[in-house]
């Protein structure tokens, strides 16, 4: 199977700072993959490499088996890889509905449109004409997920979606991610919340100091082994 996303020995930099060292990682269609690691180990830089927000020097990056040269920030969404960024990045001067419509900038065909997003997140419809930033943290996360889904992605990259959210909201997120995955959307879940990881992901990578130091299947894994890579 051709991976939707494939990093092969990728080295990424911010200016002169070498952040990712030979990172190899792939996500195949329909897979649920977790990328685990402490703060500052380079997890978000993996996302930024996909979005051309960090510069790649060495290694190859492929979307759907196609090597990406001269990558642009808008390239990933067009290739079917949508990102729910860390901190959600809701655009404050746009209403909830406008934030969603912005997510539909890529006209990929698929099941997601305003109506189906509103069915998934009724609160967004109720408040569709209010500014996106008027929502609570959990609702903003839903808006960010809805916005990414509007592009009808094959792969959803979720960067710390549980950050700053109450456990009950994290439970809701787990349900939503499982529904999306069951419907065939591949997930790359970047997380430190072990309960969310174990409920959603099937495979994992562990990062430390800009490198992948461990990978494998979650099934049958002693969770304590993951735990030691997250808790300081």
């Amino acid at each position, binding site marked *: 199977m051709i991976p939707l996303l494939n990093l092969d020995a990728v080295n990424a930099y911010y200016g002169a700072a070498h952040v990712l060292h030979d990172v190899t990682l792939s996500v195949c269609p329909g897979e649920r993959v977790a990328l685990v690691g402490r703060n500052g180990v380079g997890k978000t830089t993996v996302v930024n490499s996909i*979005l051309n*927000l960090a510069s790649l020097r060495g290694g190859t990056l492929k979307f759907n088996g196609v090597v990406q040269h001269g990558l*642009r*920030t*808008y390239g*990933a*969404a*067009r290739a079917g890889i*949508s*990102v729910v*960024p860390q901190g959600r*990045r809701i*655009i*404050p*001067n*746009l209403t909830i509905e*406008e934030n969603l*419509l*912005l*997510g539909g*900038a*890529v006209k990929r065909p698929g099941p997601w449109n305003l109506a189906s997003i509103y069915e998934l997140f009724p609160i967004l419809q109720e408040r569709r004409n209010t500014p996106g930033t008027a929502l609570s943290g959990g609702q903003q996360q839903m808006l960010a997920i809805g*916005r990414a889904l509007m*592009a009808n992605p094959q792969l959803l990259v979720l960067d710390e979606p549980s950050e700053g959210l109450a456990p009950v909201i994290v439970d809701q997120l787990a349900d939503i991610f499982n529904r999306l995955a069951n419907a065939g959307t591949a997930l790359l879940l970047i997380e430190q919340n072990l309960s969310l990881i174990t409920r959603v992901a099937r495979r994992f990578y562990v990062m430390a100091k800009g490198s992948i130091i461990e990978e494998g299947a979650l099934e049958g894994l002693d969770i304590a082994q993951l735990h030691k890579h997250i808790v300081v």
Partner: protein
Amino acid sequence: MIGLQILNGLVYGSLLMIVASGLVLIYGLRRVVNFAHGSLFMLGAYIAYAAAQQFGFWVGLVAAVSVLAAVGFCLDRFGFRLLQDRDPLTVMLVTFGLLLVFEDVVQSVWGKQSYSLAAPESLAGTVELFGSPFPVYRLVIVAAGLAVAAALVGWLRHSRVGLFIRGASTDPVTTAMQGVNTDRLSGGVVAVGAALAGLAGVVSGPFLSLSPTMGSDILIDSFVVVVIGGLGSFAGAFVAAMILGQVQALGAVYLPDLAALLPFALMTAVLVWRPSGLSGSRT
């Protein structure tokens, strides 16, 4: 008498509105304070003048707006886009350099003397207002300003591209993440901004006179408008343009000694009262 002065203020305010809205558009997408904007205004007027000699005012108008749109696109494609990761001060200096270049080009082609562009014959008459004759053409300038403002607001509020522009002016990275080609978008927006500067230049031709310094004059007033209105805000710029138009027109008559100072006094007062401008929430 005062009625006529207020009308003249409206006319100048409308011109400022067209010029300033281009500045706001370009600042929104590229975060560039475009010093060359005044020279685009001037270039528009001179191109229209040259074309109008042969083919009349309307051909001049179309020619100026089209040429300026192309200039704007090139300015973004070969200027702002290549400089987008540089220090904003560097880019500002580049636009200042362009201003000097454009002024010299205009001077070497047309010389230092001033010209006047004739209003189209159909609009050359006068109407009786407040008991004195008032040129119809000036009322047309006001109408043009209002039309541009309405068209811009409609475009930005209700079109798909308008949504992308509003998104990208606040958060270009997140907007690009959604798959919006922000490079092409900026090219288009800078082209529209430059075309508006050109349009204002042509429209001002029969009202102000054409000279190589006309660009710097209006640029300074436009900057005052953008600062008073709040950087990046259209509504603020529209209101500020109208206020400044009145200040200029009434000041010239009632406080002639202080007229040159008034815009800056107004700007200082507004900034003391509201440091980010009338409607400024964004920085």
